[in-house]
């Protein structure tokens, strides 16, 4: 059964968002348009299965029971509600902790670069640091980049933790 996760993964990558299955993590209003004050078409209970069509900022267009509408993107999680509890840390993380154990020893994951082993036994790369510096963008350059994208700056304070 080892091939199964790999198979599922390749599906996810190629499907992007369009047609992906998701489920609601809370009671969710379905709107006619992607705005808070748009008409409410219906309400989906928690753990409703939906098909995601596209995202527009904080909204996702979905199809549920044959009807289209827009819901808040953060009311959705991808996958199947039956297999994934909300707030699931992912089995991979659990396996990973179990495999590395608490001893502080590392598990060799082969030649892959960003392995724990490589990060615990690092080797500097001054050559690459010089290269990195060459790509740096100055303030003026950054300003004109923002302008070219018509990115208008806004005033907004950092937010306290959610209650």
């Amino acid at each position: 059964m080892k091939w199964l996760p790999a198979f599922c993964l390749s599906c996810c990558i190629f499907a992007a968002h369009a047609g992906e299955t998701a489920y609601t993590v809370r009671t969710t209003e379905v709107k006619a348009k992607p705005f808070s004050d748009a008409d409410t078409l219906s309400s989906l209970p928690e753990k409703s299965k939906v098909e995601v069509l596209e995202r527009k900022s904080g909204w996702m267009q979905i199809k549920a029971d044959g009807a289209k509408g827009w819901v808040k993107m953060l009311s959705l999680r991808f996958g199947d509600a039956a297999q994934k509890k909300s707030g699931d840390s992912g089995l991979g993380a659990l396996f990973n902790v179990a495999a590395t154990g608490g001893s502080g020893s590392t598990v060799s994951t082969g030649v892959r670069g960003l392995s724990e082993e490589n990060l615990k036994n690092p080797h500097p790369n001054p050559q690459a640091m010089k290269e990195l510096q060459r790509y740096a963008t100055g303030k003026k350059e950054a300003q004109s980049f923002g302008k070219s994208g018509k990115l208008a700056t806004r005033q907004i304070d950092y937010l306290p933790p959610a209650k």
Partner: protein
Amino acid sequence: MNRKLLSIVFLCGISSSALAFDLGNIDLGKALGTLQKAQQASADIDEPKEIELGAGIASNLLGAAPLLKNQRVQKYVNNVGMWLALQTERPNLPWQFGVLDDNDVNAFAAPGGYIFVTKGLLAQMKSEAELAGVLAHEMSHILRKHYLEAIKKGARTGLIAEFAGQALESRGADPAFKKLVSAGTEVYARGLDKDDEFEADRMGVVIATRAGYDPYGLPAVLQTLQGMNAQDSSLALLFKTHPALGERLNLLDRLMTGQFDEFEKQPAHAPRFMGVMGKTGILKR
């Protein structure tokens, strides 16, 4: 049980050999000097020192994963990153951004303004606003000195004061510098505090919004990763070192509801992002 016992034996072995090493090299004058420095000090690492330390850590990271050989992509990520940096309280840091040629899905920050995102993470993105969200999350770790604090917490007493007291030019030869750089690199394998990650999520969303982007770029990336197969090995380190994606998304959901409606029309710049990434082979779709 056996495993526990083994790890205790293992740890004892380490600490006793470290102790022996310290005692073997003890120099009373130097030790007293260090103690004084530690007492005087705030033991605070000033900005030039912070940058020096960060450069050492960044260099180590580049030793594990090289830079992607694509000037256009590297320049684009630096443009987005520096534009974001201008909207923060530390615009004058020597901000440098790099794409790592690695299929792991991850991003890293080092003190002083160094930020890296892997090719594997770029592959999961769909717009410039998503890239901006991820970069802004990493920048927040630097703005709030999360890594610096993590290094301080783990470092033996006096080591920080020793490093803070050294002349800047002595870099490389300074054993305290070397130890702190190694410790700093190891934080990538261990991860930051959960609360540091939550704070960086909250700040990242705000910084991207200030810079004029669609505020939902960072949540969108986290949601995409949450939809990936949790057992994919390219996610292993990210999952090990970060709070659960579901929990992060739940917190952002509560935080953003209502507060960001007025910014929803800000651009995501998906075509510009796709234009740069298009023929690079990074996006596997």
